[in-house]
């Protein structure tokens, strides 16, 4: 029977299927971090058991870590306690930890792919909703809660009902100044922050196929922002080339076997999806959000939709969002002053993101009214950026290159945006208070963020690209 890619991978991981019960799904790889794991380790202690398959679990510290002076003890007491607890738990339960100071440390969704832990055809989970990132390799990867972290610790399995499937095709060629972040913000603006709920999404079409692995990760990363369980892209030559030679990737004879298997991982031509959506890449402009959920996005030259244009039951929430942001109906965002620019997070902190920003800002200066933080996704990204001299470019432009971590994406460490301030951010969530109490977040691509950094205001990056 014809199957979608999700069905192929899912069915290859079902340990037990019984009518009226969720499937018992085998999990190949479990990634953990300091915030959502301590209560799960505690649960194991209470049960008096260990991890069922500790070697299939990898840990890092990312959410709480400072992005300056990582060689010093963490100043914030609770953050330090949580990171120390992870170290203690990993030692006690035999889990490999890439903690602070380790050359592999970084945001969990950046290090998995760069180390070759993330592979096509795998099932992967993590107590973090952006686990969908790993779907870029053609893996089933999704975020789970702490009770489920404990379940995977205890059994290497998860009880999960098989999700519905959705295909989102983006065809054609992207226009200048438009990238992966714009694609996904565009899709979410079309289908809303809840439009994908209950589905596992396969991204397809010529525009998706032409993306690099890093760009594909940006797209899959934000699948959760439309409510989807996860997102994935069928593996192809781009995927294989990226994976080959990475530290934990199969090699030699194993590589040949892997490749033969991975080449079977695609949705069959006549497979049926529960929903199919199609978009034209040429229609997509650089995107920016104006509200307090990722579905509230517009092309940067468009005006904020009017409250009266919203469904009646949604108007109060919509108005509340605009009030929070200090914006009004029908306004244009262009020219609005910006206080902070944050380039980082599991969405856009990889070497390609940093290269794109460096190429754009080379020879330009940041505006005086803006503070710019560039936070690489991992120690390896940081090292690569320095090896390529990107740090010098940033320094000359007045951009601060910090050390890896989740940073101002969610402000669990000291990197918070002050109340009332506007931040153009390459992260994934513009929720109220996400970057700090009363902080105002506008999500955008690294290029649009870099343009705001040099002009000090919301700017259509296409105009600056034309100058070159």
């Amino acid at each position, binding site marked *: 029977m014809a199957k979608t890619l999700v069905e192929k991978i899912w069915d*290859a991981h079902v*340990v*037990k299927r019984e009518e*009226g019960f969720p499937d*018992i799904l*085998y999990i*190949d*790889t479990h990634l953990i971090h300091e915030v*959502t794991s301590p*209560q799960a380790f*505690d*649960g194991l202690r209470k049960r008096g058991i260990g991890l*069922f398959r500790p070697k299939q679990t990898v840990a890092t510290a990312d*959410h*709480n870590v400072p992005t300056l002076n990582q060689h010093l003890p963490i100043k914030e007491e*609770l*953050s330090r306690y949580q990171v120390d*607890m992870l170290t203690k738990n990993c030692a006690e339960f035999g889990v490999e930890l890439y903690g602070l100071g380790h050359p592999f440390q970084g945001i969990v969704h950046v290090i998995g792919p760069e180390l070759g832990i993330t*592979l096509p*055809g*795998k099932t992967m989970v993590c*107590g*973090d*909703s952006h686990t969908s990132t790993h779907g870029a390799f053609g893996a089933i990867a999704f975020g*789970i*809660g*702490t*009770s*489920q972290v*404990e*379940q995977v610790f*205890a*059994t*290497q*399995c998860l*009880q999960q*009902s098989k999700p519905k499937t959705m295909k989102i095709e983006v065809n054609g060629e992207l226009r200048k100044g438009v990238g992966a972040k714009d694609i996904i913000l565009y899709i979410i603006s079309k289908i809303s922050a*809840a439009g994908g*709920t209950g589905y596992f999404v396969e991204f397809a079409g010529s525009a998706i196929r032409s993306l690099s692995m890093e760009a594909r990760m940006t797209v899959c990363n934000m699948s*959760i922002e439309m*409510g989807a369980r996860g997102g994935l892209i069928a593996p192809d030559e781009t995927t294989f080339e990226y994976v080959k030679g990475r530290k934990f990737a199969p090699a030699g004879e194993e590589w040949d*076997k892997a490749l033969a*298997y991975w080449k079977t991982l695609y949705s069959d031509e006549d497979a049926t999806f529960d929903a199919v959506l199609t978009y034209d890449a040429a229609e997509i402009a650089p995107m920016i959000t104006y509200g*307090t959920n990722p*579905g509230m996005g517009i092309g940067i030259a468009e005006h904020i939709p009017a409250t009266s244009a919203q469904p009646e*039951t*949604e108007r*109060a*929430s919509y108005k509340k969002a605009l009030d929070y942001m200090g914006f009004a109906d029908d306004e244009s965002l262009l020219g609005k002053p910006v206080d902070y620019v944050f380039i980082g997070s599991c969405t856009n902190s990889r070497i390609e993101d940093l290269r794109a920003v460096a190429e754009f800002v080379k020879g330009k200066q940041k505006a005086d009214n803006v503070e710019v933080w560039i936070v690489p996704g991992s120690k390896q990204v940081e090292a690569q950026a320095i090896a390529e001299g990107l740090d010098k470019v940033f320094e000359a432009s007045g951009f601060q290159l910090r050390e890896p971590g989740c940073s101002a994406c*969610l*402000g*669990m460490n000291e990197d918070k945006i002050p*109340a009332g301030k506007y931040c153009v951010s390459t992260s994934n*969530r513009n*929720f*109220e*208070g*996400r970057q700090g*109490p*009363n902080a105002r977040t506008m999500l955008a691509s690294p290029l649009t963020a870099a343009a705001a950094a040099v002009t000090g205001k919301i700017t259509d990056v296409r105009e600056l690209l034309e100058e070159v």
Partner: protein
Amino acid sequence: MKKFETLSSSVVPLPIENIDTDQIIPARFLKATTREGFGENLFRDWRYNGDNTPKADFVLNDSTYSGKVLVAGKNFGCGSSREHAAWAIQDAGFAVVISSFFADIFKGNALNNGLLPIQVSDEFLAAIFTQVAKEAKSSLTVNLEEQTVTIDATGAKESFEINPYKKSCLINGYDDIDFVRSQTDLIEEFEENKVFKFY
């Protein structure tokens, strides 16, 4: 996990849509390493001013409303997978959350903790809000066995869906980790026969 029984209670209305888990419990309060005490910071930034004084107009600070049922606008619990959101709601004394739509991960987290998420129609949700606006202490009755929720004052009743396995876990207080652990033979057999052994 505590067993869920039939519940009659007044409600706390929160007619806002797309309430994300960052609103339910902001990231800066996720640093505890136990499951207790998160209720104190439930809806922290909607509930308190920057100087920690309560915001009088927020529903949790308004003694007009109380009860074990939180009723919220559609797409409740979107965003981060933090189970702390479910813990915070439960720790603040709620046993049920009603909305016309729930985000996936939140729904699963709630069920795994014995907090019952009930999805009702847009019309029924509006009817609850209308009734509570009319009479703040109006009660609802939730019957998990029958899978119904009733607005007691009007007798309006709606059925809700729940996965039968999850329902039996809630009613009997089962622990699903014990259940999967009892399948270890099957798991090991699966590992022996993996499609691609390298993983």
